[in-house]
Structures are given as C-alpha cells and as structure tokens.
C-alpha cells in the first residue's frame, strides 16, 4: 500500500503536473462517465432544463410567435387573484387536517400491530398497505360513488339512523370536508410500514429497564417508543405534507374544483391555468410559488420537529 501513496504524493508538488493530472484522471476514468452518460442526458434534458425553463417562463407571457418578457407581472397576478387564495386556503386546510390525522393513526395502528405474532403482523401490514398500491384514480372513482346522493353508501348509513341524505360533493359546505374525510380514511400504508420497521429496531433492553422501574405499557409507549420514533415521524410528516400540497387526482376525478371554488387546490389551479387556459407564464409563476411554499413548510417542519427537545 505504501509505495502507491508515495507515487501520488510525488506528483503533487508541481502545479502543472496537477493540472494535467485532472485531465489524465478524466481520461483514465472515461468508463465512469460512460456509465453515467445515459442517466445524465435524461436528467439534463427532462429535469434540469425544464426547471430552469420554469423559472424563465414565469417572467414571460407566452405568445404563439415567441414569448414576451413581462417581469414580475405573472407573480403580481398570482398574488392578486382570489382564485389563488381560495386554492391556497383549501390546500392548507386539507393538509392541516389530513397530515396529523394520517401520521397519528399510522402510529397507533403500527403500535397495535407490532406486538402481534409474525403471521398476524404481515397480514395486517398487507391489509393496510394494499389499498395504497392501487391508483388514486380508482380510489377516487369508488369514493365518488360512495358519496352519491341517491344511492351512495354514506347516505344509506345516514338513512339507517333516520337522517336526510346529504349532497356530499355537490354543495360548498360539505365538498371539501368530504375529500378530507376520504383522505383520512385511506390508510397511510407507507407510514404504518416505516413505523413498524423503526419499532423493530428499538432495543428490548430499554423496555426491560422501564419495566423494572415499574412503568406500565402506556408509559413505555409514551416515554420510550414515541421519542425514539421521532426521525421516522419527521420523515413521514414531511413526506405527507409534500404529497398533500400536491393533491390533484381526487379533485379532478371527484369535484373538478367545485362547486364554485370550494375544492380548488393549488395543483388543480395550475393544471387549469396551464392546460385549459393555456396561460403558460402565469401557470409557471403559480408553480414556482407552490414550490416555494412547499420548501418553506419543509424547512419549518424540519426545524420544529428536530430541535423540539
């Protein structure tokens, strides 16, 4: 090993030699670049360029024959439009209710599953994860029908208790809440699996020590399990917040953002602006604002959950 070290050291003192050595290193490692090449081409063409382009076009107005620079006009338009604030408010409410509900219920379900035997564990894990491998398009189609005013499951259940049928998705007062309830009742499969994995890696000796100190099951859960699951919780909160800010499929499949703007969300608004009204510059500005909001939220959550204690 040692002689090799000396050879590389020997090349270092001369600056010129170092410069050429970068080139020789590139030449020597040409195979590594060839391995990277296919992915790199795709990455630059379909991610890097579009990201830069999104920024650029947010300062332009799209015209059929070339675009025009309009400065911050698109951004001003975003912040002056009531549609944007409606969408922001709805997305925000959706996130604030569903994210804590989903993460906490995933924690509780995982805590219930964890002590069970191997067979029951994988059975329940499957039962809770299976619904999440099917497309949201399908989930939305079924729920739309379950919410149907005339022959849906929900109004049938209400009828059993002698209550009048509700036009769940058709009126502003219940439409958004119907979507929120639906999101809460779709199991957070990823969360349950990650919590289970994290619980499996907590050392038994901690629980044994707590038992000797006279702690009961609930105290152990509160004082040992939950604090040690914190990194997982942070990850899940971030993951589901980002996902929740991008809510789209349910909206287009179930309400189309309506009635009025009752269920308009940010991504559905971007979709409408870009691909129904073809206002590309305006849609780009909305996308950049969405990105900024997600980024700010992620940073806040990261700080709060990380340095809480």
């Amino acid at each position, binding site marked *: 090993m040692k002689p090799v070290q000396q050879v590389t050291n020997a090349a270092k003192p001369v600056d010129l030699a170092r410069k050429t050595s970068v080139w020789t290193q590139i030449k020597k490692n040409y195979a590594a670049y060839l391995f990277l090449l296919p992915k790199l081409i795709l990455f630059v*063409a379909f991610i890097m360029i579009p990201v830069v382009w999104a920024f650029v076009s947010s300062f332009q107005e799209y015209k059929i024959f070339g675009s025009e620079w309009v400065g911050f006009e698109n951004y001003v338009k975003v912040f002056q439009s009531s549609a944007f604030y409606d969408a922001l408010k709805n997305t925000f409410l959706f996130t604030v209710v569903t994210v804590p509900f989903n993460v906490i219920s995933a924690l509780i379900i995982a805590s219930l599953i964890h002590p069970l035997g191997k067979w029951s564990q994988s059975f329940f894990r499957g039962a809770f994860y299976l619904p999440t491998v099917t*497309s949201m398009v399908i989930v939305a189609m079924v729920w739309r*029908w379950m919410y149907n005013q005339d022959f849906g499951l929900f109004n049938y259940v209400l009828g059993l208790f002698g209550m009048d049928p509700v036009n769940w998705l058709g009126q502003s007062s219940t439409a958004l809440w119907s979507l929120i309830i639906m999101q809460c009742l779709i199991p957070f499969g990823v969360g349950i699996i990650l919590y289970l994995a994290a619980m499996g890696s907590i050392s038994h000796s901690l629980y044994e020590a707590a038992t000797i100190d006279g702690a009961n099951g609930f105290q152990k859960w509160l004082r040992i399990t939950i604090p040690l699951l914190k990194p997982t919780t942070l990850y899940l909160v971030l993951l589901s917040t980002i996902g929740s800010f991008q809510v789209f499929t349910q909206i287009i499949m179930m309400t189309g953002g309506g009635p009025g703007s009752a269920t308009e969300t940010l991504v559905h608004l971007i979709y409408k602006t870009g691909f129904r009204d073809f206002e590309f510059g305006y849609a780009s500005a909305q996308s950049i604002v969405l990105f900024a909001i997600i980024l700010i939220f992620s940073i806040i959550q990261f700080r709060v959950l990380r340095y809480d204690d």
Partner: protein
Amino acid sequence: MAKLNKTIIYVALLVFSIVSLMPLYWVFSTSLQLSKYQDEDLKQSVSYVDSNPPKMYPMGVPEYFEHWGKARDAEKAGDDKAAAQHREIMDAIVKDTFSGFTTLFQKNNIGRWFLNSGYISVVVTLGILLFDSMAGYVLAKKQFPGKNLIFYAIVGTMMIPGQVTLVPMFMMVKNLGIMDTHWALIFPDLSMVFGVFLMRQFMYSVPDELLDAAKIDGAGEWKTYWSIVLPLARPGLAALGIFTFMNVWNSFLWPIIVLNDANLYTLPVGLKTLQDANLASFKLLMSGAAIASIPMIIVFILFQRHFVKGLTLGGVKE
C-alpha cells in the same frame, strides 16, 4: 386481562382493516353486480347496481344457486320445460355478471389501454433499473472529477415537485415533436432520479475486494458491473423495480396532459374518459377499475417482502 386486551386489539385492527379494504372490495363487488335482471315475479328488469339500499355482494351468486336448485327440483319432478327455463336464467345471470368486463373489451378498447400501460411500465422499469444502477454504481464506487457536483445536482432536484416542470416539459415535448406519443411518457419517466439515490446507497455494500479481484482477473468495467455488481444489488433492484412499475402504472397527471388519441391512452386516462362520458354505468366503471387494479394487487401479493424493503430503504436516511 392480558387476553382480553389482545382480543380488543385484534377486533380493533380487524375493524380498521375492513374500513381500509372496503373501497377495493366495493370495486370488485360492483363490477360483478347484476345490472339487468329479469325478475321472475315482478316480470320487469331490475338493476342492483344503483339500488338503494346498496347491495353488499354480487346478487348473481344467490340468484344463480336459487335457480340451480329450482332446475334440479324441476328435473326431479320430470318437468323438463321448467328446468330448461331455469337453466336459461342461470346462463343469463352469468352473462350479466361479467357483462361489464365483456363490454369493456368489446366496445371500449380497454385491452389496448391495458397493453399500453403494461408495455410503457415494463420499458420504463427496465430502463430505470439499467441506467440508475449504472449511475449509482459509479457514484458509490468510483473516484473521478465532477462526481460530487453530479451527485448533488441530482439529489437537489429530488426536492422539486413534479408540477413545477409541467409547463416547460409540455413545451419541450411539443418542440421535440413527440406530443401525443408514448415517448412523451417514457422519456420523462426515465429521467426520474430517486433510483440513482437508492442504488448509490445500495452499491456501497458491494465489497471493494470483489471489484479489485475482478480487475486483477482481467474483467473489463462493463463485465465487472454486469456479472459482479448487478447480481449483488439484486434486492435493491427488486425494490426499485417494483416501485417504478407501480408509479408508472398508476401515473395520471402527466398522461392526461400529453395524450389525446384514445388508442394511446393508458388505463388511468382511459378510466377518466369513461367516467367523463357519463354514459358508462357504474358497473362498467368499476369493471374498468378492477382491470386496472388487478395487476398491482398481484404484484403486491407476490412481492410484499420487497415492498417493505423498498419503503424502508427509501425512508431511512443515512
């Protein structure tokens, strides 16, 4: 006491899992529901698909057995005509139960959509597995100028939500002249970078000694990668492959933007147009939903282990 607690836990979990699986059950139950049933006594056609109260299981099953019993009784009594009538009704029940599926295949082109979704998912998955494992391998195991720059550029963009690039991607696809073709789906999907990150994590566990040994034996870079690195990375590849397949199979927002030709639709896009058409009965929609979800359910049941592995690999950060 402990036993009672355990019973409560089991009951609670069973209730939760019924709630969780209910919509999926509803898809299959409704897809097989009787929609045009000639009721014997009422002499009129009834549909159980949009009946109130909703029927919780396919009504064809009890009806079928009822007529089966009657046919048998009639045969015993020697009434061949009545028996034949019951047999006829039994055939009609079977035909009607599966009518959603037969209509979709005969009239709505769903076979085409299924093939489109299938081949696009397979092509993208294979491409991602190859390209991402190649990139992940050199990013984990090789030293070369620019390596860190490339890695951080790739990881940095993982934070950016896909919607940010919808508009420029649309223009790009338009300029490349691949609008309304499957290339417009395949290229953007192939450029997803999560797999590079995942494979890089995985490739760290490949022992350097093995790579050195291969080099001494005179194996070239490609041979080392293909016959030593790839087999060792198999668990990671399995997890990445399954998740890529699932994402592409279920992807929706981008396909509805770039696809117009009904012959090119993928399943989710096709299902949306079925729903939009409003002509389709709910039985038909749910039959489509069943067709679209069956492959994912099979994949999940076969590879449950890899799903868990993939999630934990992606979720646990260094």
